[in-house]
Every structure is written in structure tokens, then in C-alpha cells.
């Protein structure tokens, strides 16, 4: 497809389990972002990848959160030992080089029971 693709669209997990969220950016987009959106809230920056540069991890809330981007394309956000407060929509976005115009996926709704 032509847009940013995220999977799964919904994920229900039990407290303490690990989860992996996937993002396929638009082809040719070198920048990739992860944001978290709690119910009724704004977008909380998590991590930013740009080409081969070291990622900006300054937004990751704890060491339970990590992200990788393989081959400069697909990214995986991993949350270990999930907690109820991790429940939120996780949004991925990508952009062309030197552009702050972000294209978002539809997000993954994570529910931790």
C-alpha cells in the first residue's frame, strides 16, 4: 500500500507479558517516529529514527520500551513486562528526508489487562 502500515491494529495482553508492535513506513521515507496517545490526550513522542543515524530515544518512558529499525525500513516497538498504564494507541509516522511533514499510520490499540 501507499501509506504507513501498522500491525496489529488491536492487541490485548495480560500484565507482565511482552508485546511487539510493527510499523511499515512509506517507501523512500528515511525518518520514522513512534508516538503514544492515551485516551483523550495528545501525542507523546517516544523515539525517532533518521536514516543510519543513532535514534533519538529521549521519549521512551522506561527501559521496558525499546525499538529497532531493520534495513532502514520496518520498525518494531517492543514493550517488555507490560503494565496497565501502557494501555494506549501507539502511532507510527514517517517522513521524507529533511521534511517534518509526517504521514501517520492508523495506530495499534494496546490494552493491558
Amino acid at each position, binding site marked *: 500500500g501507499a501509506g504507513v502500515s501498522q500491525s496489529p491494529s488491536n492487541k490485548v495482553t495480560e500484565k507482565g507479558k511482552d508485546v511487539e508492535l510493527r510499523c511499515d513506513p512509506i517507501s523512500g521515507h528515511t525518518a520514522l517516529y513512534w508516538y503514544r496517545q492515551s485516551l483523550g490526550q495528545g501525542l507523546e513522542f517516544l523515539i525517532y529514527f533518521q536514516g543510519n543515524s543513532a535514534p533519538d530515544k529521549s521519549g521512551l518512558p522506561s527501559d521496558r520500551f525499546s525499538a529497532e529499525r531493520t534495513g532502514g525500513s520496518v520498525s518494531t516497538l517492543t514493550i517488555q513486562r507490560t503494565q496497565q498504564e501502557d494501555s494506549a494507541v501507539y502511532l507510527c*509516522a514517517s517522513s521524507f528526508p529533511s521534511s517534518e511533514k509526517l504521514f501517520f499510520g492508523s*495506530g495499534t490499540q494496546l490494552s493491558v489487562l
Partner: protein
Amino acid sequence: GESVGLHLPTLSVQEGDNSIINCAYSNSASDYFIWYKQESGKGPQFIIDIRSNMDKRQGQRVTVLLNKTVKHLSLQIAATQPGDSAVYFCADSGGYQKVTFGTGTKLQVIP
């Protein structure tokens, strides 16, 4: 810390009227500002942007105004339609492509 914030969490507008959504930013280094629209169950979608060397930019039915003196940004929607009902976010970037989003304003269009 630096933040981008909105004045009103919810705005109700009669169909056909003009809507004005306001945003204050605090990062004096911000040089690029963007408005996004987020419909229920979807990711935010780009509406319009403006660079800090401009104070006004117009699109189709939308206008963004930037007042750098008071660090204020607004989005004006002309002849608001039911399809405009959504949450609107302002965002800013001070370079390095790290885009920071505000809380959002929910626009409700009354038929």
C-alpha cells in the same frame, strides 16, 4: 520544559460558521509549525503548515496564522462542515525533525 499547548479542549461550532482553533507554543527555537486533523480511529492527517518566516498561509478553506511575538498559532476553518468534526493538533519543530504535539482541540460541528 518546552511544550506546545492549546487554549480550549473542545470547540462547538454551527455548521456554516467559521472555526478558530488556537495554540500557544513555548519553544522560541521552533521554526516550523503544522496542523493535523485526527478523525476517530485514525492517525493524524496533515492539514497545513507554516514556516517561521511567514505570518499567514492559506489552503483550501483553511488558514493558519502565526504570531511569533506572542508565540501563538491559530487555525481558521471557513464554512465549517460536519466532516470537519475531529480533533485538531498543532505541532512544532525546532529543527532536527523532532515534532512535538499539543494536547488537541476537539471540534464539534452542530448541524
